[in-house]
């Protein structure tokens, strides 16, 4: 019985979240992830997953990195740095974007928050934090300041259909007015918080950016406010199965230095008409030539699970590989995402998966696997 490790801290010492004690007290099983010791699960992955789908879950995602970009040139700098159109953002609005290489492939995927006319916050993956920051600083001109403010924030995600009702018990902010991908500054449990209607689970919910010293009391207050509604602490394990059901990309799986946005179904974040940006020349060529492979959803017909790295075969020819695969607690099937040639990307296409030398049968199915009821 052996299990793969999850990640190793660069200096050999894993960072601890300001909520570390809470996780241990709640029975969280801690693993090393992107240089952090974080809870992979508490009561059990499936129970946590289902709590988020039917009631609500509370995640600590303080390992995410935050980079602040300020100054008179901030908007034009971010227009150049990222492929989505930052000029369309009003203060209080965020969007999904990326840091791309000159080749038009992914350095990271990011959220861009417009805090004010000349103030922005980029939220980046923990594993890429240092590299992202170097990349951003290297390209920055004199009219912007770039600061890694990751240590100034703890980040909690409250996700699930009952999240609005739970959060409204701790704040006077007009949450019902807060639309998807909008945020506001509010007092939550009498402490300042940036409340953002975003998430990575396919459910309604919020992400709360707070000062690290505020995090433990906010955690307690949320758990108490949500107890009756069925709120459960949820770990990285459920976070992964939830985002996979929702068809959302994870860096290092669906997107990386070798992925073009259109291949991953993320072409909607690429605004070639807005003017030059890092990677735009290469992407204009890619768009003209067309892509060769596509990210698809798949399900396995019988027993067994195809996971990241397992190869895909059609008529004894290797045609692709799995980027993420799991047992889906909602669909109750083994499913996943994979890259296949465009000719094999149509829903219903039968595929074979090589799982440790054994062939599993499966087929392309529509993404996402799960859509929340409106």
């Amino acid at each position, binding site marked *: *019985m*052996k*299990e793969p490790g999850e990640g190793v801290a660069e200096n050999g010492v894993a960072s601890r979240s300001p909520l570390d004690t809470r996780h241990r007290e709640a029975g969280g099983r801690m693993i090393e992830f992107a240089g952090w010791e974080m809870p992979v699960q508490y009561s059990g*992955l499936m129970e946590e997953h289902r709590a988020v789908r039917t009631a609500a879950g509370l995640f600590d995602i303080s390992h995410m990195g935050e980079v602040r970009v300020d100054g008179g040139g901030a908007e034009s700098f971010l227009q150049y740095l990222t492929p989505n159109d930052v000029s369309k953002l009003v203060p209080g609005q965020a969007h999904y974007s990326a840091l791309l290489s000159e080749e038009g492939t992914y350095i990271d995927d990011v959220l861009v928050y417009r805090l004010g006319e000349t103030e922005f916050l980029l939220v980046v993956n923990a594993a890429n934090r240092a590299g992202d920051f170097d990349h951003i600083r290297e390209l920055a001109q004199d009219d912007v300041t770039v600061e890694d403010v990751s240590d100034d924030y703890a980040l909690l995600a409250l996700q699930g259909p009952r999240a609005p009702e739970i959060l409204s018990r701790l704040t006077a902010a007009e949450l019902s007015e807060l639309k998807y991908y909008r945020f506001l500054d509010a007092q939550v449990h009498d402490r300042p918080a940036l409340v953002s209607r975003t998430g990575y689970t396919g459910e309604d919910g919020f992400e709360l950016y707070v000062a690290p010293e505020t995090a433990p009391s906010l955690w307690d207050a949320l758990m108490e406010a949500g107890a009756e509604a069925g709120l459960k602490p949820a770990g990285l*394990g459920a976070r992964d199965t939830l985002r996979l059901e929702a068809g959302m990309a994870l860096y290092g799986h669906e997107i990386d230095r070798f992925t073009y946005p259109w291949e991953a179904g993320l072409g909607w974040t690429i605004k070639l008409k807005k003017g030059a940006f890092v990677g735009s020349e290469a992407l204009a060529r890619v768009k003209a030539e067309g892509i060769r492979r596509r990210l698809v959803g798949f399900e396995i017909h019988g*027993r067994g699970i195809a996971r990241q790295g397992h190869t895909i075969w059609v008529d004894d020819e290797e045609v692709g590989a799995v980027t993420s695969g799991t047992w889906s607690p909602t669909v109750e099937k083994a499913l996943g995402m994979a890259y296949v040639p465009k000719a094999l990307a149509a829903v219903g296409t039968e595929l074979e998966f090589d799982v440790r030398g054994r062939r599993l049968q499966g087929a392309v199915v529509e993404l996402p696997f799960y859509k929340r009821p409106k």
Partner: protein
Amino acid sequence: MYPADFLYSKDHEWLRVEGDEAVLGITHFAQEELGEVVYVELPEVGQSFDAGEEIGTIESVKAVAEVYAAVAGEIVAVNEALVEAPEKLNDDPHGDGWLVRVRPSGAVEQGELMSAEQYQEFAETG
């Protein structure tokens, strides 16, 4: 937690000797590490294995684990109930969640295997 009349392996498996046969399963620690089990693949009755050879796999939502033969021998029974109810492995790893019954090819000696007390310490210290 860990029955005193079992022997335990470094691969987090247990062995209960019954006459000239032995029952094999995974430990409480192992099932906890794996999380909710969704598929169990077991060998066929009549197959023979050397000690340390892979005899099956256990898949949870987030991981897959190989099961190794803790002793050399022939499979005389497999726990078919796990195919339809893999959760038994989580609920009762030392009882209903047993995996296979083996007829060892030689006498089962403690050798590399651990007592309950030794295993408890092994599992706790990783």
